[in-house]
């Protein structure tokens, strides 16, 4: 096995870290405190070709491999989990299904703008009564002439209302369950499509997640993404890859917490010496570093499977399950190392802790990941 990153992967990691430390880290606490979406970062990320890294250059992307993209999500998330979430939702959840299932005309109309970062994307699957049970959605799309008419609502939609292109899932045949679900590309400002008030969240507060409302929203018939009735497959295939992005986000958050803990442990003096000299602290640092490394191996392995056209559903689920729960554990230890200061906004670890929790929940809860993994193990 070769555990070395390629030259390009190392240089991409260094470049994204340089960008993130210069542009993202300085505003991360403020984005969190003010629940502010970092609109000013998106053109800068687009200029560095971060918004469509794994897509071909001729389609507006950077032509990088999946692992390089995952490393980029990790590095951005290390600086700011909200910005990592925005990047991952745009690239993995919104752009990927257009790339994978879109027609040539849809590629022409949307993919270039999305992969180049000119237009931000969002993925609208979850509904108020259909979270983990995504197939239970009640949003409908009825074909009338050469248009579909959308009705219903979505909830927790990352990147709305800033996104311009939405991948929306709706039932074209409610009698067929998941096989009656279809995917559509819906543009912002389409009449009948409105965005509600953003949620106030525990963490990733710089990422916007409002509900969407469709009220007799007419979209052209060629807005259908993939075949009619294939929407659930489109959603599940998209989430298989998206989970690796969330795992990378968790990895970045945990690394940030470890970095802060190491720095603090060397500076903080108690009993006349830095607390880093105390075994109680050393053991926590050792466990954190080991868990992060184990997660990194799982995450990079899953991305590598994707790069090599090998199945990655189970590998991605394992990576997300372990990395997300690891991030919560590591960030908890980071607060413990910081003591009372760690519980305040004076240090970043309380933000890391709040940001980490969502990675256990969105794009498939830990329980869903365990279902996926168990299904493969018991096959």
């Amino acid at each position, binding site marked *: 096995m070769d555990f070395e990153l390629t*030259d*390009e992967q*190392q*240089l*991409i990691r*260094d*470049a994204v870290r*340089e*960008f993130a430390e*210069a542009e993202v880290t300085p505003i991360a606490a403020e984005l969190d405190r003010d629940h502010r979406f970092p609109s000013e970062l998106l053109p800068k990320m687009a*200029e*560095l*070709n*971060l918004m469509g*890294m794994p897509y071909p*250059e001729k389609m507006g992307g*950077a*032509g*990088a491999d999946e692992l*390089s993209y995952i490393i*980029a999500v990790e590095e951005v998330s290390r600086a700011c989990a909200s910005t990592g979430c925005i990047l991952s939702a745009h690239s993995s959840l919104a752009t990927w299904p257009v790339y994978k299932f879109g027609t040539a005309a849809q590629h022409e109309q949307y993919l270039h703008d999305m992969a180049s970062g000119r237009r931000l994307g969002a993925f609208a699957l979850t509904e108020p009564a259909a979270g983990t049970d995504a197939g239970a959605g009640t949003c409908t799309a009825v074909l009338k002439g050469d248009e579909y008419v959308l009705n219903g609502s979505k909830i927790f939609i990352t990147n709305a209302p800033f996104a311009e292109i939405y991948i929306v899932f709706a039932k074209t045949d409610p009698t067929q369950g998941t096989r009656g679900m279809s995917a559509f590309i819906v543009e912002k400002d389409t009449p009948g499509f409105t965005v509600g008030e953003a949620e106030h969240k525990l963490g990733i507060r710089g990422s916007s997640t409002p509900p969407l409302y469709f009220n007799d929203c007419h979209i052209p018939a060629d807005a259908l993404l993939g075949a009619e009735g294939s929407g659930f497959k489109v959603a599940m295939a998209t989430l298989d890859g998206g989970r690796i992005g969330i795992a990378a986000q968790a990895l970045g958050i945990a690394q940030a917490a470890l970095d802060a803990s190491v720095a603090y442990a060397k500076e903080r003096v108690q009993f006349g010496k830095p607390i880093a000299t105390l075994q109680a602290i050393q053991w926590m640092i050792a466990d954190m570093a080991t868990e992060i490394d184990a997660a990194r191996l799982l995450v990079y392995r899953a991305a590598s499977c994707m790069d090599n056209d090998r199945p990655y559903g189970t590998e991605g689920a394992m990576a997300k399950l372990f990395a997300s729960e690891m991030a919560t554990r590591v960030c908890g230890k980071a607060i413990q190392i910081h003591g009372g200061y760690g519980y305040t906004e004076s240090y970043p670890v309380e933000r890391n802790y709040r940001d980490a929790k969502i990675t256990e929940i969105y794009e498939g809860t830990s329980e869903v990941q365990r279902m996926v993994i168990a299904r493969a193990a018991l096959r």
Partner: protein
Amino acid sequence: MKIVVAYKWTSDPEEAAVRADGTVDWSRAKPGLSAYDPVAIELARHLADAAGAELIGVTAGGKGVAVPIASKAALSRGLDRVVIVEDESLAEAGRSELAAVLAEVIRQIGDVDLVVTGDSSVDVAAKMVPTVLAGELGWPAVAEVTAVSGQAGALHVERAIPGGVQVLEVSGPAVLAASADAAVPRVPGMKEVLAAAKKPVELLELAALKVPPGNAVMTVTGRSRPERKARKGQFIDTTDPAAAAAELVTALRGAGAL
């Protein structure tokens, strides 16, 4: 028209350790582009774009300077191509020997109008190569450069000096050492990183270069480590700032520091 940037692939001193005998252990330090060289590349890239010149990176050193990641790192910052001399004998070479090699490479490239370097190397920080290189080439050297405009051959160069800015008109070829704030280096985009592998890399053999003996020869005659003075641990109450300032001045005078 050609502009050369002399860059260095070296190790990050923050990851180096100082041994008890005062020598430096670089074995665990991560190699990378010397910290100030991206500034030189950025400054030179602007000048090259303005003049339609080719921008060539040049480096010389011991084993490791020709590894692909080193040239890719430099090329991704905006160079058009690189020319590299890698030879084990250069690993411990002094600044004068390195400058002589770089000068010969620049002569062989030919028609070079300008050489730009970083302010200093991040590992040694001697700030000598630009000046010795200029001496080898017979060109003027301008250090502490904060801004450059105009074209190679008729440059308007600003340099920071104590109390102000010195403005120089530089004609003919020259070596400029860019200060750390002469330009804001761009972060390489993903496409630039991926395209770096497709740019030309030329490897030159040191023996084939036939580098003439350098004009300046420097040798290390000794090595010492400054003694660490014990701290006095004297605290001054700053409740009354004026009294505190007076007490500080008295203390410094008493210690012979003023």
